[in-house]
């Protein structure tokens, strides 16, 4: 006779009180595959932990976003935000779908060029553009979004040297009702600095001001803020037209669309509160068509959406290292992926799933990463099934900012794989090893 399936013994105290308004927790269903590829097989071949990116999800998400805007507004252009995820394979998928590149450093600019993006389809944002970066951007006809007066003066100087006409926009910050107000990027609207910058550019006569750019914040769940921004940018465009007879070609609304990851402390899950692309598109395009742009010429609408386009496509699969009890008896689980790979775990309550059904019982659990650091917490408190050492887990929606903000701290960064549309798995970034670091380090002779 075969033996019965073993399940770890559990003892739970029945706590009286007001029931949670959301009712009891639904059992956490395991996730065994991503795009029909077994997670176990990926871990077996590429090690643990491993980032897994779904090409299918990237393309579907992009198409949904583009459709939402392009069916409501005639001139829409997305520019892929490199800082959100600048793995070449990821960037190239977005470029294939039609996205331009949006970069914020010389490094990202070089990456965009290497990805065969024509200079005039690269938007150069950010407060840090070196002289060399600007020379390169001007020569390539890239769209330079000026962040501060020192940058503007540098460009004015370069115009004389290079004898070329830079294509620029100014970055504008303003009060859109978002708290905290992001005022570190660009020139302020309310205090007249933005208008002052436009005057300096157009009085120079050798620089083409072709756009206005704004970056109102990140994880914006109040889409109306974009409408406020559009009203103010339209006023600026109108003022520019009447003063200089200069038409603004495009309005760039930056990024900031929220993904469906829930922020820590949020009352409701983000899946219930995050606006859809259609919600954002409705608010933004309604504002674009209802405000008065000079001569009734509709400027192009550029969007630098990053997080909302890639978060859903990224997964992190790994292995349970240990289970233990904390001083107060709470359960703790140690996994092999920590805040070194998931910097974003500091503000998100990530959804974590077992890869296989191991137990019908769950218990309030703190999930720690593998680092020898007290702050290495992936989930502070989650009702989680009782996985054993060696069991696999998978974390959902980790496509944004993880693979760019990750740290080489204590341990190496892992492999990143891409599942293509046919279900084939490709290694797109190799895991690090000691040689990677040895190559970068130099030891003075006397210490050898």
């Amino acid at each position: 006779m075969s033996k019965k399936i073993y399940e770890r013994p559990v003892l739970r105290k029945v706590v009286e009180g007001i029931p949670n308004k959301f009712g009891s927790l639904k059992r956490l269903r395991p996730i065994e595959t991503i795009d029909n590829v077994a997670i176990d097989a990926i871990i077996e071949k590429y090690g643990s932990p491993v980032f897994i990116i779904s090409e299918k999800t990237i393309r579907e998400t992009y198409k949904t976003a583009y459709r939402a805007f392009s069916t409501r507004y005639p001139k829409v252009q997305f520019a892929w935000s490199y800082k959100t995820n600048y793995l070449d394979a990821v960037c190239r998928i977005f470029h294939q779908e039609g996205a331009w590149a949006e970069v914020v450093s010389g490094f990202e600019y070089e990456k965009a060029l290497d990805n065969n993006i024509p200079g005039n389809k690269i938007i150069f944002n950010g407060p840090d553009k070196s002289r060399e970066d600007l020379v390169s951007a001007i020569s390539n006809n890239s769209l330079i979004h000026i962040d501060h007066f020192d940058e503007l003066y540098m460009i004015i100087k370069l115009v004389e040297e290079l004898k070329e006409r830079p294509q620029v926009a100014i970055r504008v910050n303003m009060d859109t009702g978002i708290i905290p107000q992001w005022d570190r990027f660009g020139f302020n609207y309310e205090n007249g600095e933005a208008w002052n910058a436009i005057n300096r550019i157009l009085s120079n006569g050798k620089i083409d001001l072709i756009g206005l750019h704004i970056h109102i914040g990140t994880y914006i769940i109040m889409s109306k803020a974009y409408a406020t921004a559009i009203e103010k940018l339209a006023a600026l465009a109108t003022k520019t037209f009447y003063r200089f007879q200069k038409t603004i070609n495009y309005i760039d609304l930056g990024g900031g669309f929220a993904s469906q990851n829930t922020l820590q402390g949020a009352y409701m899950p983000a899946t219930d509160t995050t606006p859809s692309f259609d919600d954002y598109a409705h608010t933004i395009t309604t504002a674009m068509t209802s405000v008065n742009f000079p001569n009734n010429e509709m400027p192009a609408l550029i969007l630098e959406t990053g997080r909302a386009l890639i978060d859903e496509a990224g997964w992190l699969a790994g292995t349970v290292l240990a289970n233990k009890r904390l001083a107060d008896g709470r359960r703790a689980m140690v996994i092999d992926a920590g805040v070194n790979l998931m910097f974003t775990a500091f503000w998100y309550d990530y959804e974590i799933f077992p890869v296989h059904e191991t137990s019908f019982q769950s218990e309030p659990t703190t999930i720690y990463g593998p680092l020898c650091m007290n702050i290495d917490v992936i989930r502070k408190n989650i009702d989680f099934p009782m996985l054993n050492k060696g069991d696999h887990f998978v974390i959902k929606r980790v496509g944004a900012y993880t693979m760019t903000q990750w740290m080489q701290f204590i341990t190496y960064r892992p492999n990143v794989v891409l599942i293509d549309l046919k279900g084939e798995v490709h290694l797109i970034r190799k895991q690090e090893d000691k040689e990677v670091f040895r190559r970068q380090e130099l030891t003075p002779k006397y210490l050898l």
Partner: protein
Amino acid sequence: MSKLNSLAISDSGFIFKPSTGESFTTNEMGLFIIQLLKENKSGEEIINAIMEDFEVDNVTAGRDLYEYLDFLKREQMMD
């Protein structure tokens, strides 16, 4: 009467502790262990019994048993 014998335990795993009025739930494996504890079986005997009836190795059964015994002690349900 031992602390364990003073508990009211249902077949479905509901446990009532009359001395404090507290209630607990446990699973099939927990009931199995409590039953053997009531029969004054030792740790080793319980592990062997678990391995006989369930698909589990010695180390896992031992680890989980001693953790469970800690729970019972912490809740003052056994000496």
